[in-house]
């Protein structure tokens, strides 16, 4: 377990609602090794994005523990978690989250600039070349297609050389062909950079490309395929739900 990069132990997330407290996530436990890829799948409203937010340290669970690398982020305050995110984490979002007033190059360079990285511009150029947008440095997001925008977002995420990359429905806003290309790019770069990839997706094809797939339903982890360790049930395990067609996930 030395190169375990993500460890989740008995995580619960409860939010208050009008009638009663609502359990969004219940007793989630698993761990992930460095360089593995993990897909979190499940129906809408299952709690996938909530789990992603918790794993990335963007939110805190009601109970349970999460380790990112050697950092127990559930024991940290927001400033501490921010430091861990700055050190380890990158993101790709369904809605791309590019800043409209920045060019493609500036968008990619921004997180590195914020971290005071001296070669931000050069790295940004390099990664834009890698995603095939070498000619589009000075273009603004509104001048780019959806696929191109997501490529910029992917370049931005990898340029920071994160240990863990969290992707929330990275192909969700794209047509199938473009989605395929983005997913190719994502896995290709992931392999090159030796990054641990955690993505939330509805797309079975995308999930299938991951080494590990966990399924969340009704806030519970109902299946884990591949060798993601499920804490408390160390054996690889697969239940009937994981056999459901993609449409059901």
């Amino acid at each position, binding site marked *: 377990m030395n190169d375990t990069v993500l460890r989740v132990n008995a995580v619960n997330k409860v939010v208050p609602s009008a009638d009663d407290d609502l359990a969004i996530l219940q007793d989630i436990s698993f761990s992930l090794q460095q360089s593995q890829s993990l897909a979190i799948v499940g129906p809408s409203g299952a709690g996938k994005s909530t789990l992603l937010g918790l794993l990335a340290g963007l939110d805190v669970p009601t109970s349970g523990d999460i380790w990112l690398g050697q950092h127990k982020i559930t024991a940290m305050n*927001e400033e501490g978690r921010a430091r861990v995110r700055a050190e380890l*984490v990158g993101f790709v979002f369904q809605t791309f*989250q590019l800043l409209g007033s920045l060019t493609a190059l500036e968008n990619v360079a921004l*997180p590195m600039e*914020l971290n005071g990285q001296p070669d931000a511009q050069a790295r940004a150029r390099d990664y834009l070349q890698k995603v095939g947008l070498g000619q589009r440095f000075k273009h603004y997001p509104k001048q780019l297609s959806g696929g191109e925008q997501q490529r910029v977002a992917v370049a931005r995420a990898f340029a920071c050389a994160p240990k863990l990359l969290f992707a*929330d429905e990275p192909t969700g806003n794209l047509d199938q062909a473009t989605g395929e290309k983005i997913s190719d790019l994502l896995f290709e770069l992931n392999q090159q950079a030796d990054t641990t990839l955690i993505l939330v997706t509805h797309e079975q094809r995308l999930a299938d490309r991951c080494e590990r797939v966990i399924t969340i339903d009704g806030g519970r982890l109902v299946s884990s395929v591949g060798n993601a360790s499920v804490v408390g049930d160390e054996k690889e395990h697969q239940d009937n739900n994981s056999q459901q067609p993609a449409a059901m996930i």
Partner: protein
Amino acid sequence: MTLVDLKLLYRDWRGGQLNLVVSALVLAVMVVSAVSLFADRVERGIVQQISQFLAADLAVGGVIAIEPAFKDQADALSLNTARTANFRSMVFAGEKSHLASVKAVSSAYPLRGLIEVANSVSANNVQALSTGPQQGEAWVEPRLLNLLNLELGDQLSVGYLDLTITHLIVNEPDRGTAFGAAGARVMFNYQDLPTTQLIRPGSRASYRLLLSGSETSIAQYQEWYRQYEKNEVRDGEAGGESRSDTGLQSTAAPHYQLLTPQGAQEQMGETFTRGRAFLLLSGTIGVLLAGLAMALASHRYAGRLTDQIALMKAWGQGASAVRKSQAIRLFAIALFSTLLGMLLGWLVHYLLLELAKELLNIELPAPSWRPWGVAALTGFVCVIGFALPALWHLPTIAPLKVLRRDLPSSLVGHGKRLSIGILALLILTAWYSESIVTAVLFLAALFALFAICGIVALQFLRLAKGLGAWQGSYLRLGLANLWRRRQHTLIQLVGFASTLMLLLTVVGMRTSLISEWEAQLPSDTPSHFLFNVANSEVEQVKGLLQEEDLKTTQWYPMVRGRLVAINGVDITPERLARSGGLSREVNFTQTDELPPSNTITQGQWWQQSPDGFEFSMEEEVASEIGVNIGDEITFSIGGLTMTAKLTSLRSVNWQSMNPNFYVIFYPGALDKYQPNWVTAVKAGGLANNQDQSLMYQAPFVGKMVQQFPTAIVLELTDVVARIRDVITQVTQGLELILVLVLACGVMVLFASIGVSFDERLRENAILRTLGSSKKVIIGALTVEYASLGAISGLIASIGAEIVLYFVQTRVFDLSAQWHPMLWLVGLLLGVVLITALGLLRSREIITVPPLESLRRLA
């Protein structure tokens, strides 16, 4: 991080997100710096002149000739002395005459400073001389040559004195406050003064004994003068006319004052603090509107920054780093906008100076630090008060917002933001006016005005909404939009309408009031006043006027004097200062007939010969200084005192343009003071002369000055023209400030459209997608903005008309009159301006294809 922050700021600016915040701030700072630079330079120019104004270290000033004891004391202290006498008189050359500002100076004048003279009108070889004119010489202001068609070396008559014009005066050290003296300056030697025969008892002149010397002697003289004043009070309390140990006849004291540069500066300082405060308070409306625009624009800017901040936090920036980044960016915005605003304000203040240049015929020094301080404070307080509250929540945005955009942001509440904004305004207003009370009252009045405008505007909006329900597609759409966004509509309406109202009021005053006043004067209104007619000349002047077939009002004997005691108790300067009318030397008359346009309101006009002296007083000044029927008042006239009983109070119709007096004595009371006579003459129409050339002179004036050189003929057309000039220049300056304030109103419009921009973009994209034509969209927007403009214009016109009504009826005592032109201008200005600017700001809503709009907002 700083460089990255500045980079981010630059990118925000490039993306157009900061345009409005910066423009509004620049405008606010520009208005304030223009106004305060103008006020500061004028104030410093005048104060600088005052510091030289004595042409001496010290002076004794008086409205009666300076008694010898003052000079004796100066001689005893080995001080240098010089004498001057200032008065207005007719000067003439051939047929032409001019009511000049005459100054007789003794040979030693000036004791300090130099007189600058030139030898031709165009020459720039200005010489600075340390002595004034020799006997027989007249030094004149260049404009007199044009007025009287003269050249250097020509003869000029002043009273019975003939002089040769030898120099043209460019500047003189004690020119005074120089608010463009109405008459051109004529200076001659003091020894020539008796020959003019202009100065007689009752003549209106001001005398000065100038003093200079060592600091010790000057201080000793000041101490001696203080002693003299004290003795005067003590003797006054004793109630007798006596000579004090200073050797002066004590009752003359009220007519004298010791003039020091410091004292004059203090006095002018107060006047200017008020003037500056007034100008800056008009600027405050601009700051308020700009602040409103900034608040709205910052709100939108904050919305735009939300994603950026959420991302920054997701990438590992802590709240404190984000807060620091925000602070750096805001500081940079404040610094840049303030500096730009100051620069533009510097340019605009030249426009204000240009408008006022005839009024302020003075050299202007560089401004002090104060206007820059005021401008900088305005910039930074505006940022803190209006922009910061809208952005305050940004560092607290949860990083999770990158995944869940629906997460609420903990915005600073409306009430809190409003309170911070008002507090910022209060700080600025108090700083501008140097009085917290003025600031509170001013803001309260301003908000009351806004509230009234808001209530009226809401009614108009309801009306428009009702109207829209019955109309076709784009009319209904446009009017419905107006109502649906009524909160923003109201903000725009109130900002625009109140500024436009002030602008219309000022324009109305400039363009209509004087003309209306002239038009409503009765046809027998006098056109000329005759002053300074000696007792011996009255019959001859009457004869001349009869020959010319000119009618006059009653002739009144006139002396100048002041009130010194009420029921045996000296009047304190404070009590006297309560009355604008009586605080200085005033004209007294005596007559047995109650003058026309006077009505007795209390007591009785004298019926028969009274036992002692009796007098009647104008009711307003009587109530100001607090005297009643039966009070015994002591007057000092030319250094002699007399006591009389108040037996009646009168109301006076000052509009009658007849000679009117605050104090009228029972006939005989003033005989021993050798009064001069005054009357008003009807010679041609008053109103009709306004377009005629300045050189025009009623035919009898020439004969008058030829035959009676010491008499003064005052042409009312000149006076009215002068008032008109002053009003025009003052109102034009105000109009310029208000135009800038209106520009701040435009910012509110822009910012307000900005707030609803995305919503409008989405709605119009949906409408277009559903098949509405571009024409319908443009039509609806046009209807919306045009209605907004029409309502603003209407409210502004109503408000301006109400203000003008009160000015007409209460200030000018005129019958009320409509100003249809004002309504037309108000409506047109409102509709055209708001429609044009509104459509300009909304052009993206119209031109961006619907698909792109929807994608952009996805």
